C-alpha cells in the first residue's frame, strides 16, 4: 500500500509539475493575450491613460488571476479526481495484492506451523536422543572411570610385578655374579689344592728325609751321651786333681811368705825403735802446736771485735754529724720561723698551742657538719611534704573534676526531668483545658504515675551518686589495700608454691599410673565391672584339648589290650581261656608260631644227633687209623693218648700256636719227659710231628709185642 501511495504521490507530483507547467503556460498565454490586447491602449494616452491603463491592467490582471485561479482550481480538481481514481485503482490493486499476500502468508503460516510442529517433534526427538546420548555418555564415562581405575590397579600390579621382576633380575644377576665368583674361587682353590698337594708331597719327602736324618741324629746323640757321661766323670777327676794342686800351691806360697817374713823381723825391730822415738817427739810438737793454735784463735777473735768496733765508730761519727746538722737546723728554726724559740722547750710549747688551736677548730668543724645534716634532713622532709601535697592536689583535682562531671550529669538529668515534668504539666494542662471532669481520675492517675516516675528517678539519681562516691572510696581503698595485703600476698604465694609442688607430684604420679595402665592394657587387662570376656564354645583350643584327651584314652586302652595279649601269649599253655573276643583271632597266629617253633626245635635236635653221630664215627676212625685218641682239654690244647700206651696217664699235650691249627707245639708232660731222644730227633732235627707220633706208636707197639 505504501509503495502504491508513493507511486501515486510521485505521479501526482509529476502530473502536478506538468499541470503546473500547463497552468503557467496558460497563464503566460493569457498574460500575452492581455498584453497584446492592451498593447495599443497604453500608447494613446500617456499621463492619465497610464493610470487608467494601469487600472485597466490591474483589473485585467486581477481578472486574469481570478480566471487563472479558477482554472488552476479546476485543474486541481481534475488532478485530484484523477489522483483519486488512481488511488482507488491502486487501492484495489493493493487490496488484491494484500489478499493474495494474506493468502500466501496464511499458507506460509500454515506451512510454517506444520514445519514448526515437525521441528518441535524433531527437537523433542533430538532432545530425547541427546538425553539418551548424555546418559550413555555418563555411563561410558563411569565405565571409563572404572576401566581407568582397573587400568590403574593393573598398572600398579604391573609395576609391582615389574619391580619384583627387576628385583628378581637383580637377584639373578647378583646370584650369577656370585656363582661366577664362586666358580672362580673354586678354580683358584683347585689350583691351590694341586699346588698344595704337590707341596705336600714334597714336604712328605722332606719329612722322610728329615726322619732319616733324625734317626741318625738320635743314634749319634745316644753315642754322644755315652761319651758325655764318660767325659763328665773324667772332668770330675780333673777338678779334684786341680783342687789338690791349687791347695798345694797355696801351701807352698804361704811357706815362702813365712820365710821372707822371718827374714824381715830384725829390720822391723829397728824400725820400731826409731818410730817410737819419733812418736814421742811428735807428741811434744803436737802440744806446742795446740797451744799456739789457741793463741791464734784468741787473737783472731780480738781482731774481729776490733774491726766491728771500727765500723761502729764510723757509723757513730756519721750519726754524730747528722745530729749536729739537725741541731744546727733546729737552732736555725728560731731564725726561720720567726718565733721566740731558742730551745726545744719553746718548740714544745708552740706545738702544744698549735694542738689546742687544732682541737678548737675540729670542734667547730663537727658542729658545722651536724648543722648541715640537720638542714638537709629538713630540706628532704619539706620536699616529701611538697610531693604529698602535689599528689593530694592532683587527687583532689580529679575528685573535683569527677564531681563536676557528676554535677553536670545531675544538672542534665535535672533539666531532662524538669522538661519531662513541664511536658507532663503541659499535657495535664492541655487535658485540663480540653476536657472537663470526666477525665480527672485518669489525669490524677497519670499525675500519680508521673510523680512515681519522678521519685524513682530521684532514687536512681541518689543511687548513682552513692555509687560514684563508692567508686571513689573503693579506688582510695584499693590504694590503701595494696599496702596492707603485701603480707597476705606472701602467704598466698607460699600457698601457691606448695600447691604447685603438689600439682607436679600429682602429675608425675599420674604419668606413672598412666604408664602402668598402658602396660596392663597391652597385657590384656580389663575392668571386670564394665567388660566381660566371651568366646565361642566350639573353639579350636577346646577341640584340640578334647582330641588330645580322647587320643590319650584310646592309646591307654590300646596299651592295656596289648598288655593283656602279651600276658596271654607269655602264659602260652591256656590261650583260649581269655574268653574275650580279641584273643580268638590271634590264637591262630599263636598256634602257627608254635608249630613253627616246634618244627625248628625238632630240626635242631635232629641236626645235633646227626652231628654227634658223625663226630663219634670220625673220632673212632681216627683212633683206629692213627692210633691216637685226640681230646680237646682247653682252648687250643689237645691231649693225645696212644692206643698202645702202657699207663693211662701217658699222654702228650699239644698247643696250637696258630689259630688254624697249622702249627703245633709240644707241651711238657711226664710222658714227654721220657721221650727226649725221639723229640730231639723228630721234632728238633726233622721238624715233623707226624714222624714223631708214628715213632712213638712203633716204639710202644714194639714194647707191647715184645713184653
Amino acid at each position, binding site marked *: 500500500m505504501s509503495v502504491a501511495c508513493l507511486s501515486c504521490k510521485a505521479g501526482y507530483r509529476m502530473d502536478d509539475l506538468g499541470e503546473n507547467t500547463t497552468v503557467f503556460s496558460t497563464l503566460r498565454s493569457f498574460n500575452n493575450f492581455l498584453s497584446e490586447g492592451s498593447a495599443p491602449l497604453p500608447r494613446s494616452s500617456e499621463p492619465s491613460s497610464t493610470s487608467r491603463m494601469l487600472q485597466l491592467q490591474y483589473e485585467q490582471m486581477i481578472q486574469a488571476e481570478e480566471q487563472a485561479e479558477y482554472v488552476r482550481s479546476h485543474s486541481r480538481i481534475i488532478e485530484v479526481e484523477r489522483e483519486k481514481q488512481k488511488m482507488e485503482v491502486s487501492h484495489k490493486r493493493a487490496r488484491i495484492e494484500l489478499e493474495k499476500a494474506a493468502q500466501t502468508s496464511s499458507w506460509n503460516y500454515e506451512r510454517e506451523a506444520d514445519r514448526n510442529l515437525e521441528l518441535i517433534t524433531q527437537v523433542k526427538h533430538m532432545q530425547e536422543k541427546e538425553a539418551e546420548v548424555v546418559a550413555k555418555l555418563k555411563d561410558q564415562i563411569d565405565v571409563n572411570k572404572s576401566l581407568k581405575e582397573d587400568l590403574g590397579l593393573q598398572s*600398579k600390579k604391573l609395576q609391582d610385578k615389574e619391580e619384583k621382576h627387576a628385583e628378581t633380575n637383580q637377584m639373578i644377576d647378583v646370584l650369577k655374579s656370585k656363582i661366577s665368583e664362586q666358580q672362580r674361587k673354586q678354580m683358584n682353590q683347585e689350583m691351590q689344592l694341586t699346588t698344595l698337594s704337590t707341596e705336600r708331597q714334597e714336604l712328605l719327602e722332606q719329612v722322610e728325609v728329615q726322619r732319616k736324618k733324625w734317626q741318625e741324629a738320635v743314634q749319634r746323640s745316644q753315642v754322644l751321651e755315652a761319651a758325655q757321661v764318660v767325659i763328665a766323670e773324667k772332668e770330675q777327676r780333673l777338678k779334684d786333681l786341680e783342687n789338690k794342686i791349687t791347695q798345694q800351691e797355696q801351701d807352698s806360697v804361704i811357706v815362702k811368705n813365712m820365710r821372707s817374713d822371718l827374714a824381715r823381723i830384725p829390720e822391723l825391730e829397728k824400725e820400731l825403735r826409731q818410730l817410737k822415738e819419733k812418736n814421742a817427739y811428735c807428741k811434744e810438737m803436737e802440744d806446742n802446736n795446740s797451744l799456739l793454735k789457741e793463741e791464734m784463735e784468741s787473737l783472731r777473735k780480738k781482731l774481729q771485735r776490733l774491726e766491728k768496733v771500727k765500723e761502729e765508730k764510723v757509723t757513730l761519727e756519721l750519726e754524730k754529724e747528722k745530729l749536729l746538722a739537725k741541731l744546727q737546723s733546729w737552732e736555725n728554726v728560731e731564725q726561720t720561723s720567726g718565733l721566740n724559740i731558742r730551745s726545744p722547750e719553746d718548740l714544745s710549747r708552740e706545738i702544744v698551742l698549735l694542738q689546742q688551736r687544732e682541737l678548737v677548730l675540729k670542734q667547730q668543724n663537727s658542729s658545722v657538719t651536724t648543722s648541715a645534716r640537720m638542714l638537709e634532713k629538713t630540706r628532704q622532709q619539706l620536699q616529701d611534704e611538697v610531693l604529698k601535697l602535689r599528689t593530694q592536689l592532683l587527687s583532689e583535682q580529679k575528685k573535683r573534676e569527677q564531681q563536676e562531671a557528676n554535677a553536670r550529669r545531675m544538672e542534665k538529668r535535672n533539666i531532662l526531668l524538669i522538661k519531662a515534668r513541664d511536658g507532663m504539666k503541659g499535657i495535664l494542662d492541655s487535658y485540663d483545658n480540653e476536657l472537663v471532669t470526666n477525665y480527672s481520675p485518669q489525669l490524677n492517675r497519670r499525675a500519680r504515675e508521673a510523680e512515681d516516675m519522678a521519685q524513682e528517678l530521684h532514687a536512681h539519681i541518689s543511687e548513682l551518686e552513692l555509687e560514684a562516691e563508692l567508686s571513689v572510696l573503693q579506688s582510695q581503698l584499693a590504694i590503701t589495700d595494696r599496702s596492707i595485703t603485701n603480707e597476705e600476698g606472701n602467704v598466698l604465694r607460699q600457698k601457691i608454691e606448695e600447691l604447685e609442688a603438689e600439682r607436679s607430684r600429682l602429675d608425675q604420679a599420674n604419668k606413672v599410673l598412666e604408664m602402668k595402665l598402658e*602396660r596392663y*592394657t*597391652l*597385657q*590384656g*587387662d*580389663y575392668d*571386670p*565391672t*564394665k*567388660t*566381660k*570376656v*566371651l*568366646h*565361642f*564354645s*566350639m*573353639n*579350636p*583350643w*577346646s*577341640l*584340640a*584339648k578334647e582330641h*588330645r584327651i580322647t587320643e590319650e584314652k584310646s592309646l591307654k586302652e590300646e596299651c592295656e589290650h596289648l598288655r593283656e595279649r602279651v600276658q596271654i601269649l607269655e602264659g602260652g599253655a591256656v590261650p583260649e581261656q581269655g574268653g574275650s573276643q580279641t584273643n580268638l583271632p590271634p590264637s591262630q597266629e599263636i598256634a602257627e608260631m608254635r608249630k613253627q617253633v616246634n618244627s625248628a626245635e625238632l630240626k635242631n635236635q635232629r641236626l645235633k644227633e646227626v652231628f654227634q653221630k658223625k663226630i663219634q664215627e670220625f673220632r673212632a676212625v681216627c683212633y683206629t687209623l692213627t692210633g691216637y685218641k685226640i681230646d680237646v682239654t682247653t682252648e687250643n690244647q689237645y691231649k693225645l693218648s696212644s692206643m698202645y700206651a702202657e699207663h693211662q696217664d701217658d699222654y702228650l699235650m699239644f698247643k696250637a700256636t696258630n689259630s688254624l691249627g697249622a702249627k703245633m707245639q709240644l707241651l711238657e708232660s711226664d710222658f714227654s719227659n721220657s721221650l727226649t731222644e725221639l723229640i730231639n730227633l723228630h721234632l728238633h732235627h726233622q721238624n715233623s710231628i707226624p714222624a714223631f707220633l708214628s715213632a712213638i706208636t712203633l716204639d710202644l707197639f714194639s714194647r707191647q709185642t715184645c713184653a
Partner: protein
Amino acid sequence: MAGKVAAREQITLRGSASIVSEFFSYGINSILYQRGIYPPESFTREQKYGLTMLVTTDPILNNYLKNVVGQLKDWLCNHFVQRLVVVINSIETNEVLERWQFDIECDKTMTENSQPREKSEKAIQDEIRSVIRQITATVTFLPLLDAACSFDLLIYTDKDLEVPEKWEESGPQFINNSEEVRLRSFTTTIHKVNSMVAYKKIDSF
C-alpha cells in the same frame, strides 16, 4: 554394602562394621599361617587389600571363623565390642604363648541413621595393608613355637550384653612374664582398631 559401592568416599556404620570384620577374618587367617598353627598346605591364596592373603581351606576352621566374625560384625553395629584377642597356646602344657590383641574404639554417636562419614576406601585399604604387612614382619622377632599349638578367639564386650546361645564366658588368658609390642592402627572414622602383640619371654640361662 550397597551404600559403600554407590559412593566410594562415604562410610556408613554398617559399612565400617563390615570392613573391620573382614579385616579380622583375613588378619586371623594370616596369623594362623604365619605362626604355623595349621599346616601351610591347608591355606590357599586370595587377593585382598592389594596383597596376596592366605586363607584356610579347613572346613571346620572356616565354619568357626564365620560364626565368630559374623557375631562380631553384628556387635560392632551396636557398639558392644571393646576388644578382640587371638590367644595362641600349647596343646601339651596348656599355657598361653602368644596374645594378639586388637582394641576397637568406636564412635558411640554414630548410629544406623546418622549421616555417612567422609573417608576414601583406598585410604582405609592402605592402612589395613600396612597393618597386615607389619603382622607378617613381626615373625622375625617372635620366639619360635616348637610344640603343637592351638588358638582361641576372645571378645571383650560390655558387661550387660546378653550372651548368645553358642557362646560362653571365659577368662582373659593372660601371659605371665610377657613382652608387649604395639603395632600400627587403622581407622574408618567410625571404628578405630589398635593392634598389639604380647609373647612369653624366653628364659635365658
